[in-house]
């Protein structure tokens, strides 16, 4: 478990993180709007940037040394846009990274690469150049290089950004599998990314923690605020302008419109909130 206590980060006149305290475990989703400070926190944990104040404990031990978190051996970080050595093949890239990780024995490297490639389902693509891979495959190479050094914590920054629907689903399944052996932290501004995946969720906004808890606790924040209207396609334009529409679901005889509101109007029925509703309730300070 990673315990983040009182972490502060300032950059010039901007306070990026203000007294952030979180307990990250299992498959943890860190969500928030753009500019909330999620990437900064991920980079602090991965010792890519310094922190001004605070404690980062991993399994009870504080890893802040000076102004950096020194836990590179425990933490693997996959940035949003992973791309290395475009002209080189996947297997050569992994072999070189394995050398830089300190694996000097050729056979040991080959074994580690094989294992990592199998784990991320890249078999059959080993000899493709990095530039020939799709965004999702490149990210899987990124995960493979992290897995080779066997970190116990994996951090993913916006893991599904730029992926098509199929890759998004495949990637989500991969993250789920990784969660059985590692602590996985996923930072995203898309709530759907973490739905059904995370066991615990933290919400950051403007560098402050607004919420931390289970998905059920997050959903509970929107209890009583989600309404569903059944409207005809002609009425849809009006409702889209007038109400705060969260989701549309096409039916044979019209459209089911989920709306986030304090009170429902005539024809609206209250429905059970989903994760996105809880997120909206927290971010808007409704509950």
């Amino acid at each position, binding site marked *: 478990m990673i315990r983040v206590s009182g972490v502060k980060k300032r950059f010039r006149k901007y306070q990026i993180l203000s007294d952030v305290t979180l307990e990250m475990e299992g498959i943890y989703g860190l969500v928030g709007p753009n500019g909330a400070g999620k990437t*900064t926190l991920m*980079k602090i944990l991965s010792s890519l940037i310094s922190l001004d104040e605070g404690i980062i404990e991993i399994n009870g031990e504080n890893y802040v040394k000076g102004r950096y978190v020194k836990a*590179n051996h425990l933490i693997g970080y996959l940035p949003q846009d992973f*791309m*290395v050595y475009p*002209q*080189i093949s996947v297997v050569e890239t992994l*072999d070189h990274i394995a*050398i830089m990780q300190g694996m000097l024995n*050729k056979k040991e490297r080959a074994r580690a690469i094989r294992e990592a490639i199998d784990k991320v389902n890249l078999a059959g693509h080993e000899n493709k150049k990095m530039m020939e891979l799709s965004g999702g495959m490149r990210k899987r190479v990124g995960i493979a290089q992290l897995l080779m050094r066997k970190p116990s914590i994996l951090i993913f920054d916006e893991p599904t950004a730029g992926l098509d629907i199929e890759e998004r689903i495949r990637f989500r399944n991969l993250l789920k599998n990784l969660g059985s052996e590692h602590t996985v932290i996923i930072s995203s501004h898309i709530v759907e990314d973490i739905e059904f995946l995370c066991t615990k969720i933290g919400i950051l906004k403007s560098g402050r923690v607004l919420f931390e808890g289970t998905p059920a606790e997050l959903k509970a924040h929107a209890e009583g605020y989600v309404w569903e209207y059944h409207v005809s396609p002609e009425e849809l334009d009006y409702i889209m302008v007038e109400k705060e529409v969260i989701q549309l679901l096409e039916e044979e005889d019209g459209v089911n419109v989920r709306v986030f509101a304090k009170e429902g109007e005539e024809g609206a029925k209250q429905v059970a909130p989903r994760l996105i509703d809880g997120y909206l309730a927290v971010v808007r300070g409704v509950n």
Partner: protein
Amino acid sequence: MRDYLESIYATFLFDRKTMGLTFFVPIVMFGLSLLLILLVPREQNGIYNNIIIIQGVFIPFSCWCLMYRLSEMYEEGAQETLVPYYSKRFGIDFFRYFIINIIGVFLLCTAFVVKYGMSSLSALNVIHFIILVLFYMFFGTSLIVLIKNIEISLTIIIIYTVLEVVTLGEFMPWPHIFLFQPPVWDPFLLRKFVILLITVIALMFTTVIFIRRADRKPQ
């Protein structure tokens, strides 16, 4: 030890693949220097011009491959992944190219001695060559970790070197690192060596500090 040497060899092969033909530029400059030393007739070629060739043609390219290697860190999407690895391995990368460059310097010195005799080459020149190699390597690495752009960094090095060699260190108002006259151990030369060494140390610290600080702006 065998694993270590094998991994060093694999890294050289990897550099050759990532750099493509540019990997061979220092080798071409070495060949050119060797040809100039060996083939130009003695009477057309003042003996000390050969020393200037080693200083001005071969040694400035000693930073070339290492700069290209470090520049891989600053390609789009690579920084966060490669900076921790490259900064940790910088010592090994520096050392392997330093050894290659020193071998190059000694081969050129050997060619020089074979052609002109042992007495033509001063020990001071050899020491100066080694310090110059260190200077250029750390100058190149400092520029790349500060500017994070290979083209601009190489341009600065090439402009500095060409201006120094063409003007024989007499025109531009900046520190002159080459020896354009046969060396005599006097306070002037001592001062030059001390300044060069201090610069090398300063550039080394610049590299070591800034190589870890690639794009550390929060987002």
